[in-house]
C-alpha cells in the first residue's frame, strides 16, 4: 500500500479536527452510546410515568436533555450534524488525491520494484519470445505498459483504479440519506385518518400535532374487510378506496398492508381499523312465562314496545369495549328496560354472547338476533419528498460498499532479465485491499506464466 499519497495536512485547527478519523470514531461511538440510551429510557412517555420511574430529579434531568424524545433532541441532531460536516470536509480534503489516483496513468514501476518480489522463477525462454507472450497474457487482465531495461524488459500492469471511488461513494451516500431525511422532515407530513365504510374524508389529522391538513381531494372508503386463516389469525385487512377530485372518480384501488395507494406524492397505508355502531339490529324478546317470542327490526336510539303493553325497551347506545365485572366482553349494545310498576333495569347485549341476558333471570329475555358489522378503516397518510434521495443513497451506499469490499486497485510488475541460457522472472505487486487474495492471484499468475 502506498503511503505517499496522503493529502497535505492543513494548519486550520477546525479543519484539522474535521479531517481527523479520531474525531469520526468519537462521534460514531457517541452516536452508538446515546442511541442505546434511547432504547433503555422509554421514549415519548407521559410525565407521570417518568416521575414514577426516575423520581423528580431524574425527570427534570430527562426534561432538560430532551431524553424522552432524544432522537429529535438538539444535541442528538448536533451529533449527526457533526458527522455530516466531518464526512463532507474529509471527502473534500481527500478528493484531489483520490481523483488523481483514479485518472492518472502514471505508471511508477520503481515504487513496486523496491519491495520484495511476490513470486520469482526462472524459465527457458528468451527475451524476444517471452516479451510478446507475457504481454499478451497480461493484457487479458491488466492495462499494461512495456518498457525495456538492461538485459531484459518489464511489463507494468494496473487495474481497478476506479475502485478508489468506493469510499467517497459510501461517504457521499451517508450524506445523501441524511439530506433526504431532512427534506422529508421539512417538506413532508405524517398523519392519519379514519374513514367509515361508505364514508369519505378530505382532511387528515397530523401526528405529533393537533393540526389537520387538507388533502385537496376526497378519499372514499367503499368497503373494509378482514379475512382470517382457519386458525383464526388475521390473514388480510383490505380497504377498497376511491379518490375523487371535484366529484369525479380519479382512482380506485384496494389497499392491503404492504400495498399502499399512492397519488400525487401522498401515500395511503392500511394501518388500523375499528368497528362502528351497527346500522340495523334485529332483537328477539322472549317472555319467560309464556315462552312466546317476538322479533323486532330496529336501530340504536329507538324504543321497542313489549308485547301486551308490559313495558318498553330503549336501545341507548353502542359500546365498543364493554366490561362486565372486569371481564372484557367486547362490542355490545346497551339499553334500559322500563316495566310497568318496576324500577328501570340496565341491560347489556354483547355481540359475542347473544344469550347473555338470560343470566339476568328477568321476566323478559332480550337477545340479539342479528346485527350488521360496520367498520371504519384507519389509514396512515404520508407525504415524503425526501424518500427519493434516501433510496438513491441506499442504492449508492450498497454499490459503494460492494466496490470497497470486493474490488481493489492492483498494480503488478513483471520484470524479466535474460542471460544466454534462460530468463529470470520476478513479479512484484501492490494492492489497496485483500492482500491475501492478491497473493493467491499472483501465485496463480506465476503458475500460468511458467506454463506459457
Amino acid at each position: 500500500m502506498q503511503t505517499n499519497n496522503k493529502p497535505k495536512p492543513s494548519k486550520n485547527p477546525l479543519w484539522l479536527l474535521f479531517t481527523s478519523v479520531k474525531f469520526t470514531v468519537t462521534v460514531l461511538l457517541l452516536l452508538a452510546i446515546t442511541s442505546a440510551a434511547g432504547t433503555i429510557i422509554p421514549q415519548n412517555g407521559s410525565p407521570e410515568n417518568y416521575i414514577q420511574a426516575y423520581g423528580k430529579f431524574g425527570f427534570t434531568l430527562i426534561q432538560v436533555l430532551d431524553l424522552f424524545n432524544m432522537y429529535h433532541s438538539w444535541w442528538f441532531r448536533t451529533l449527526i450534524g457533526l458527522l455530516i460536516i466531518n464526512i463532507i470536509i474529509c471527502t473534500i480534503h481527500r478528493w484531489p488525491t483520490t481523483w488523481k489516483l483514479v485518472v492518472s496513468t502514471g505508471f511508477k514501476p520503481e515504487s513496486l520494484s523496491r519491495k520484495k518480489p511476490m513470486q520469482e522463477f526462472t524459465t527457458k525462454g528468451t527475451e524476444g519470445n517471452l516479451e510478446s507472450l507475457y504481454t499478451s497474457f497480461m493484457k487479458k487482465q491488466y492495462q499494461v505498459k512495456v518498457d525495456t531495461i538492461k538485459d531484459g524488459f518489464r511489463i507494468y500492469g494496473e487495474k481497478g483504479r476506479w475502485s478508489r471511488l468506493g469510499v467517497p461513494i459510501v461517504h457521499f451516500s451517508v450524506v445523501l440519506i441524511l439530506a433526504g431525511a431532512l427534506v422529508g422532515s421539512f417538506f413532508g407530513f405524517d398523519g392519519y385518518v379514519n374513514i367509515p365504510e361508505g364514508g369519505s374524508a378530505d382532511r387528515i389529522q397530523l401526528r405529533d400535532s393537533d393540526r389537520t391538513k387538507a388533502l385537496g381531494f376526497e378519499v372514499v372508503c367503499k368497503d373494509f374487510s378482514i379475512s382470517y386463516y382457519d386458525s383464526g389469525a388475521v390473514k388480510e385487512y383490505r380497504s377498497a378506496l376511491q379518490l375523487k377530485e371535484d366529484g369525479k372518480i380519479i382512482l380506485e384501488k384496494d389497499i392491503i398492508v404492504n400495498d399502499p395507494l399512492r397519488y400525487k406524492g401522498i401515500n395511503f397505508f392500511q394501518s388500523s381499523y375499528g368497528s362502528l355502531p351497527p346500522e340495523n339490529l334485529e332483537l328477539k324478546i322472549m317472555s319467560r312465562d309464556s315462552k312466546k317470542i317476538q322479533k323486532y327490526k330496529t336501530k340504536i336510539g329507538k324504543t321497542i314496545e313489549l308485547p301486551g303493553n308490559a313495558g318498553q325497551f330503549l336501545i341507548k347506545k353502542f359500546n365498543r369495549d364493554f366490561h362486565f365485572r372486569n371481564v372484557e366482553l367486547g362490542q355490545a349494545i346497551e339499553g334500559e328496560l322500563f316495566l310497568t310498576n318496576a324500577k328501570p333495569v340496565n341491560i347489556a347485549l354483547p355481540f359475542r354472547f347473544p344469550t347473555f341476558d338470560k343470566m339476568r333471570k328477568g321476566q323478559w329475555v332480550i337477545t340479539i338476533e342479528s346485527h350488521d358489522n360496520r367498520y371504519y378503516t384507519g389509514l396512515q397518510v404520508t407525504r415524503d419528498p425526501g424518500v427519493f434521495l434516501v433510496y438513491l443513497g441506499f442504492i449508492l451506499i450498497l454499490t459503494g460498499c460492494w466496490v470497497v469490499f470486493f474490488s481493489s486497485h492492483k498494480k503488478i510488475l513483471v520484470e524479466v532479465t535474460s542471460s544466454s541460457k534462460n530468463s529470470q522472472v520476478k513479479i512484484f505487486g501492490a494492492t489497496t485491499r485483500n492482500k491475501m487474495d492478491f497473493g493467491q492471484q499472483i501465485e496463480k499468475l506465476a503458475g500460468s506464466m511458467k506454463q506459457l
Partner: protein
Amino acid sequence: MNSSFILSVTTFVYGAAGFIYLAVWIFNIKSMERLATGTVIIGICGNIAGLLFRWKESYDLGIGHAPLSNLYESLVFFALVIAVLYLVLEKKYNLKTIGAFALPMAFISMAYASLSPKIGEVIQPLLPALKSNWLIAHVITCFIGYAAFALAFGIGLMFLVTLSEKTYHQGLLSRVPEKKILDELMHKMVMFGFLFLTGGIISGAVWANSAWGRYWGWDPKETWSLITWFIYATLLHVRFMKGWRGKRIAVFTIIGFIAVLFTYFGVNYLPGLHSYGS
C-alpha cells in the same frame, strides 16, 4: 420424514462436526480432517433439506410462505449461513482449525432453535404485515451479515485465546493459522458482514416504508441494528486509518458481535413504557 426431524438430526451433525474439528486441532489427527469437512457438508445438506421441507410443509398447510418468517426459522437459516461461509473459507484458504470455533456456533444456533421452549417450531400463517418480498430480502441479508460477524467473532476469539504473545508456536497453537492470516480473515468477515448488514438495514427500511409509510422510526430493533452498524463502521476506520490490527480488532469483533446478539435477542427484554406504567 418431516422438516423437524431432519433439522434435529442436522443439529447433531453440526455438533459432531464441531467435535471432530476440535479433535483434529487438539490431538492433531490429520486423518480426520476430511471426515470433519464431510460432516459439515452433510450438515449443510440436511440444513437445506430441512428448510426446503419446511417450505413445502407450509404449502401443504395452505399457508405457504418462505421458511424465513420467525425466530425459529431465522436461527436455522443463521446456522446454515455460518456453515456455508465457514466451508468457503476452509476451501479457499485451506484452513481447518477455525472449524473448531465456527461449527459450535452453528450447533448452538440450531440447538437453541429447537430446544428453547419460548421458540415456536410450529409453522404459522403470516401476519398481514409480514407478507412482503422485502421481508424475505431483509431476513436473508441480515442473517448473512450476522453469520459473517459470527465468524469474525469466532476468529477473534481464536486469536485472543490462542495467540497471546508468549505461547505462540507451542504444541496446539502451532496448528493455528498465523496471526497475519487470522487478522485478514477477521477483517474479511467484518467487511462482508458490514456490506450485508447495510443491505439488511436498507431492506428493512424499504419494507417499513411499504408497510407503514415510514422508513425509519427509531424503534429499539432498528436502533440497535444502527448501533451495530456504527460499531463495525468504527472498526473499519480504526483498522484502515489508524492501522489497528490483531488483538485490538479481535476485541472489537467481540464487542460488535455482542451488539449483534443484542439486536437479535436482547431488544425483546428492553423496558417499554408499559412495563412499569401499569
